[in-house]
């Protein structure tokens, strides 16, 4: 198990080999790679600037790795996150998980990513054509809203309440006779 916050990420092939070598009982390797994308919140992003409290970030990543390893009975966990200026298409972070079976690896991967996004002192600033913007609020991606059994898309995660009102107004216009709403939010504690 290891974590790292730095200017570079390991090559995926090396992480794959490292995870495979962690035990002969490894039956699944699950890897997530974050990538800088062009479109974000309606803006045209040129690059992201990542900043971290490196000591604390590595400490927290280590705690996350230990937590998910124990919770899901994983064999090995590797977490790496980049800092500095990253252009569109560049990799931002890697989560690598070795497990006996795919199910626990896939579940652990999702929880690990959410924990990294919300609970580690790493910050990103978007440098876009429209200006520079710090990303201040990251919400869990497992928010699901069903209206009349159909999943509604949250357009603006920074203001979930207003998004919900807009969705309801739209549904009222199209099918006002009966509305059934189900909201589920997955948290990890």
């Amino acid at each position, binding site marked *: 198990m290891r974590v790292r916050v730095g200017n570079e990420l390991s090559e995926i092939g090396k992480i794959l080999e490292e995870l495979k070598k962690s035990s002969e009982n490894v039956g699944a390797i699950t890897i997530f790679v*974050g990538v800088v994308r062009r479109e974000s919140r309606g803006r045209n992003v040129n690059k992201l600037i*990542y*900043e*971290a*409290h490196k*000591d*604390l*970030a590595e*400490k927290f990543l280590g705690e996350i790795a230990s937590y998910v390893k124990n919770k899901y009975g994983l064999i090995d966990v590797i977490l790496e*996150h980049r800092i500095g200026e990253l252009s569109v298409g560049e990799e*931002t*972070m890697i989560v690598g998980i070795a497990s006996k079976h795919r199910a626990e690896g896939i579940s652990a991967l999702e929880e690990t*990513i959410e924990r*990294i*996004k*919300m*609970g*580690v*002192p*790493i*910050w*990103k*600033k978007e440098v876009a054509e429209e200006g520079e913007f*710090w*990303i*201040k*609020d*990251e919400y869990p991606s497992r928010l699901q809203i069903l209206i009349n059994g159909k999943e509604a898309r949250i357009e603006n995660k920074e203001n979930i309440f207003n998004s919900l009102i807009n969705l309801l107004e739209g549904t009222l216009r199209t099918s006002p006779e009966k509305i059934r709403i189900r909201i589920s939010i997955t948290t990890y504690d």
Partner: protein
Amino acid sequence: MARVVVRFFAWLREEIGVSEIVLDGLGSLADLLSGIRKSLGSRSGAIFEDDGSLRNNVIIAINNRIVSSEGSFEKISLRDGDIIDIMPLGSGG
């Protein structure tokens, strides 16, 4: 009485306009926060609410250990050379 270094991160640093300050004559973490408010004046709004309480999206660490309970700030003593980090919640990934 302790002399400590206070470091600011990410957008807190940009809104405040300095990356670190040195404050001395301090006894507790509560003293330090009060000193920061005085030192930064109107710029301290990035860290504190109008009533002086810490904003709920701000984290404090002393020598790389997170301090979680605002109610106990008066009980947390500072020592010469302590490094206090004031930072926002993370947004990595």
